[in-house]
């Protein structure tokens, strides 16, 4: 008898913590004790949990529903890759088609203007060399080509310009966004007076809440002309405008994650630094920021992933010309924008459709890896560092 109080405490705590369904063995002996209200024979048996169908079903149902997000990720993976797979299993049929296309190209190009002649001549040589180089996998060499012309008489599915385009815009946006966002996060974490925080936090939330199509619209209608008048470059819509607009979408992410990491730096670190006579800015720059480096790096990675997959902004603000160049002032076409612009018009199941799904699969894999890397940086490096000291 004297055992019961601690046992009942245990029972309660167990009930909160233990996720396992009540075992069926529990009710064999316990039923009579608890159920019949046997007051005099108050035993530890009576305190055991009774098996209840409704509880059991509720728990199972909740677990099944919770499973949906897991299933969703798996299905996204399966269905995006399933539609992209045929590209790798197209046998000889495709090969001959491409050989033909190399022949056909000659007169297909005649219709182009004189100005393009020289350039296309070069391209033709290049694509011919590629086709000849790997005869077995003609489709794959087509994919690795440098020209994206999916709806011409001779379709070309070279995704290289699109990949380069995506990277160009993304890099540019990260280069613009990360200094601004990290400095702003440092300001909030270390220097900002209360009123400044109260202005800054809602502003960031509002910026994060801007629909990307609104940012795209702003870039297209206002920013593009403004920048062109300011710098006087040739194309109104280009990678620079797109990158700048994208920076607006990326800043909130980098800021939020970096600020979390900076404020998570243990107080004793900064207090030790201050106690040693370092000033506030020295502490911020030489103690807080280095301590939070993994978190800040994760913030940049997350921003990179967001920018890489973002569609509407680049669709509206980059000019969407699939040219392979490293010039930031020329129009670009990114992978995401290509999917967004062309998917509505393709025939289900044909090569163009498959290639667009392949682009989607690449986007998915890339952002997945970036997010996983960011997670590792935050979970393991950052938290371990703070705990380990």
């Amino acid at each position, binding site marked *: 008898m004297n055992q019961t109080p601690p046992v009942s405490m245990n029972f309660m705590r167990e009930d909160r913590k233990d996720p396992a369904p009540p075992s069926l063995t529990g009710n064999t002996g316990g039923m009579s004790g608890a159920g019949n209200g046997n007051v005099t024979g108050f035993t530890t048996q009576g305190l055991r949990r009774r098996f209840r169908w409704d509880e059991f079903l509720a728990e199972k149902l909740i677990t099944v529903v919770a499973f949906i997000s897991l299933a969703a990720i798996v299905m996204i993976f399966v269905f995006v890759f399933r539609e992209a797979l045929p590209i790798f299993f197209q046998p000889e049929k495709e090969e001959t088609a491409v050989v033909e296309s190399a022949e056909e190209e000659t007169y297909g190009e005649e219709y182009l203007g004189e100005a393009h002649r020289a350039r296309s001549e070069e391209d033709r040589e290049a694509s011919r060399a590629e086709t000849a180089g790997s005869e077995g996998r003609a489709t794959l060499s087509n994919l690795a080509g440098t020209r994206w012309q999916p709806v011409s008489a001779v379709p070309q599915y070279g995704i290289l310009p699109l990949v380069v385009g995506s990277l160009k815009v993304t890099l540019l946006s990260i280069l613009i966004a990360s200094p601004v966002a990290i400095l702003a996060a440092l300001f909030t974490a270390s220097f900002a007076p209360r009123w400044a925080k109260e202005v800054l936090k809602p502003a960031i939330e509002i910026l994060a809440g801007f629909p990307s199509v609104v940012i795209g619209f702003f870039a297209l209608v206002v920013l593009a002309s403004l920048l062109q008048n300011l710098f006087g470059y040739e194309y109104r819509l280009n990678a620079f405008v797109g990158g700048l607009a994208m920076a607006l979408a990326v800043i909130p992410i980098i800021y939020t994650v970096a600020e979390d990491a900076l404020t998570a730096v243990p107080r004793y670190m900064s207090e030790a630094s201050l106690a040693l006579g370092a000033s506030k800015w020295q502490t911020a720059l030489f103690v807080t920021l280095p301590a939070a480096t993994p978190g800040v790096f994760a913030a940049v990675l997350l921003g990179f992933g967001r920018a890489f997959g973002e569609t509407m902004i680049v669709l509206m603000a980059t000019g969407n010309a699939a040219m392979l160049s490293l010039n930031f002032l020329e129009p670009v076409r990114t992978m995401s924008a290509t999917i967004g612009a062309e998917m509505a018009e393709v025939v289900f199941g044909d090569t163009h459709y498959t290639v667009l799904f392949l682009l989607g699969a690449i986007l*998915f894999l890339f952002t997945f890896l970036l997010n996983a890397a960011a997670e590792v940086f935050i979970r393991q490096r950052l938290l371990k560092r703070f705990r380990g000291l």
Partner: protein
Amino acid sequence: MKRLRRKVLGSAVVGLSGAAAFSIVAVVIVVMATIVVGGKDTISWEFLSTPPREGMTAGGILPAIVGMALRVLIMSIAGVPVGVITAVYLSEYAGAQSRLARAIRFAVNTLAGVPAIVFGLFGLGFFVQFVGSGMDTLLSDGTDLHWAQPNLLWASLTMALLTLPVVIVSVEEAIKTVPQDLRAASLALGATKWQTIWHVVLPNSLTGILTGGILAVSRGAGEVAPILFTGAAYFLPRLPGSLSDQFMELGYHVYIMATQSTNVDATIGIQYATTLVLLTITFMLNFSAIFLRSRVRSRQMR
């Protein structure tokens, strides 16, 4: 001398970071002001309550507003319960070391990072091509295309998946603020686990559930990429009558008016006004979510 240099350097660091911070605030104000100034003259009751006319160079945006509202409504009906239940599972049922719970958490994080356009591809590949054509085969021997094409239902369900992580994260945050004492008291009175969740935990995290729902709606209202090819229509003057109809949508309307309409320059007023309506809706949604969340957090502090 050294001291002076240090002082200058210090104010440079503070000044630079402060400038970065306030440049963000300035950009937000500039973007909002530009859109408000550009759009305020076109907005009228007529603009909000009539469909577009004359090849979308005149008239209003009613179908777009209704389309967005319907999409968001169906999305919430499908997505919020799933999100809430997942959050309940993660915080109440799953143990800290449970493998399944960790897998689900990982899935939710991953889901939050998948680009919106990939959700669109999934919607097309899974809902339209797989489920849709499956339904057609079952219901009408697959002879006519009814469900196996982009429509309101598929767009909404795609969007529900996209916003699922938003709901889960904010509901879980709210559930965590329910004091353990309340649960213990309920259990001590003899309530079962499910009774405790239903009568104690969920009512106490209602604000958080509401916040999650609003955040999801706001995110969903602004996202255009997933519906580009899962149901949005270029121009459709009538309102959608059933789940299998295509629909006009506010964000998509902004996109096509700005890039693909017949006369972009002549409709600049309509474009600004449409953007302003979209921005106002998401702004109000976000603002109420921030307000509710600050209430949840202040309870956490106590």
